[in-house]
């Protein structure tokens, strides 16, 4: 359906961990049309500071209630300003945007979900939707972050209702190492008898690169939710490009994450042509 601009009332807004917040918005038109993996462009406040909207995935979609939830992590000015918005205020959204995940026909295909950091956000809705498909759910979530405090609280993740494998880079919770390493080891181990028929992932580009290597090596279906800096979110600025073999109709060197994505198959991205992307500055500085 068409994207719309909607003024959404904040229903609740709570801090779920040191740097992660959950925001529930009344947004009847957007929630009615939203699909898992799609996103909104949210204006955190009027004025010029910050100037641009910020993209956020749907954490949950409640079309009956006309509501959506967004899960976000403090990254910089925009998310900081957002974190101070009180319930009852309104926030200006544009959405739903992007392609979203394609659901499998059946819940029983072995599905691996891989999330890095705040990449967990779109997974919750995806899991909920897959769970409602015919067949016995056979999905596993591999969820990593730099350190334990950057993970969602365990109780929330357990509520997703599928087996979860945690990893932290510093070993402070779950597996000690990268989540993609955990995933590789788990699938390699025959005893686990888990050979994913499809991989859905969301997280930083460096993580996605390892996911891409794995799915290409194992010739597995994949849906990677990729990030890029965005000015418009609607395909107008051409700012959110990634090197790729575009859809047939656009035989160009780049795809636009907001329009052709954010979900891509691993093979469609030209990983070797990706230049260094900015990463958030270390949080220890200039707070």
């Amino acid at each position, binding site marked *: 359906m*068409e*994207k*719309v*601009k909607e003024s959404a009332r904040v229903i609740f807004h709570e801090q779920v961990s040191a740097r992660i917040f959950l925001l529930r918005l009344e947004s009847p038109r957007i929630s009615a049309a939203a699909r898992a993996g799609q996103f909104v462009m949210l*204006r955190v406040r009027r004025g*010029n*500071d*910050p*100037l*641009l*909207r910020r993209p956020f995935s749907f954490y949950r979609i409640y079309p009956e209630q006309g509501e959506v939830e967004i899960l976000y992590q403090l990254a910089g000015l925009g998310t900081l300003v957002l974190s101070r918005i009180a319930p009852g205020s309104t926030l*200006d959204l*544009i959405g739903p945007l992007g392609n979203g995940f394609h659901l499998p026909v059946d819940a029983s295909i072995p599905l691996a979900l891989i999330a890095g950091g705040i990449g967990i956000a779109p997974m919750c809705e995806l899991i909920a939707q897959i769970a409602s498909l015919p067949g016995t759910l056979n999905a596993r979530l591999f969820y990593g972050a730099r350190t334990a405090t950057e993970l969602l609280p365990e109780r929330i993740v357990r509520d997703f209702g599928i087996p979860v494998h945690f990893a932290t880079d510093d070993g402070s919770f779950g597996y000690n190492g990268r989540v993609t390493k955990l995933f590789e080891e788990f699938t390699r181990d025959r005893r686990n008898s888990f050979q994913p028929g499809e991989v859905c992932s969301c997280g930083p580009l460096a993580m996605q690169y390892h996911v891409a290597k794995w799915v290409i090596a194992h010739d597995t279906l994949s849906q990677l939710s990729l990030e*890029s*800096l*965005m*000015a*418009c979110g*609607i*395909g*107008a*600025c*051409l*700012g*959110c*490009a*990634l*090197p790729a073999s575009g859809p047939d109709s*656009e*035989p*160009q*060197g*780049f795809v636009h994450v907001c329009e052709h994505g954010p979900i891509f198959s691993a093979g469609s991205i030209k990983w070797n*042509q*990706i*230049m*260094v*992307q*900015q*990463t958030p*500055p*270390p949080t220890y500085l200039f707070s």
Partner: protein
Amino acid sequence: MESNHGPANTAPDLSVQLGPLSLKNPVMTASGTFGYGQEYEGLTDLQRLGAIVVKGISLAPRPGNPPPRLVETPAGLINAIGLENVGVDRFISVKMPYLLPLGVPVIVNIFGNTIEEYAQLAARLNGVPGIAAVEINVSCPNVKKGGMVFGTDPEMTARVVEAVRRETTLPVITKLTPNVTSIAEIARAAESAGSDILSCINTVAAMAVDIFSRRPRLANIFGGLSGPAVKPIALRCVYEVTRAVKCPVIGIGGIASAADALEFLLVGARAVQVGTANFVDPEVTGQIMDGIERFLEVEGLSAISDYIGTLDTGCLFPFAEDACATMEI
């Protein structure tokens, strides 16, 4: 709030005449910030627009620069899109069929790396139904002159304009870059070479770096700054240009509200283009038209043309004609 001036029931006249180009109102979208129009469907009333200026078009499709292509700055945006576009043929065959039925004047922003490319583009667009004007983006490197930007040299600017002028019967707009010592000089060169209209400004040359990775934030190193941050620069350029030439001028740069647009009109621009602000709020152009209407009503003006260029730069000493004024010590 109700208006309390002006004849009831008569909305102010927003139409403007820019030489050969008539617009129903002075608010257009700026090239590269509005795609090919369709991207904003459902988000803004396309048919209300004075004109749609589409993304810069070249002869052949261009992939654009590698990402990262964007950096947000205080009240601004740096972009280094690298003029990615579908090329003139697909523009005509794929994009125009959407734009034509809207009934809104379409202005095609064109660019090339040689004078011939500009000329060929102009020829190719001439006679295509629905196109109201071409806008020449001269902020491009001339590959035959060591990559010097056309628009930074009066001579090269004039040659591009002449070449386009020869190949088209459409109104020709030349879009000036602010990255010059004297924009008035370039403006005069473009006008003399046959440009019907001038528009300014294009983006301001800028840069951003990441202190942690120690690398530029744009793969292209340099980019162009736009948004509210540049408005004071743009306004100064429009002032200089309107005083240097006789032809009509379109104001561009940091416009995000009716007040911003009115500033450019006051200085002498006959119309404006809204760029970066579309990203922030796709409805901004409509809000600007509403605001201008309201302003005219409250000020008791029946037409925007009565306001355009009415800036008063004479000295004004409110307390000088009076007894007290002689009491200087």
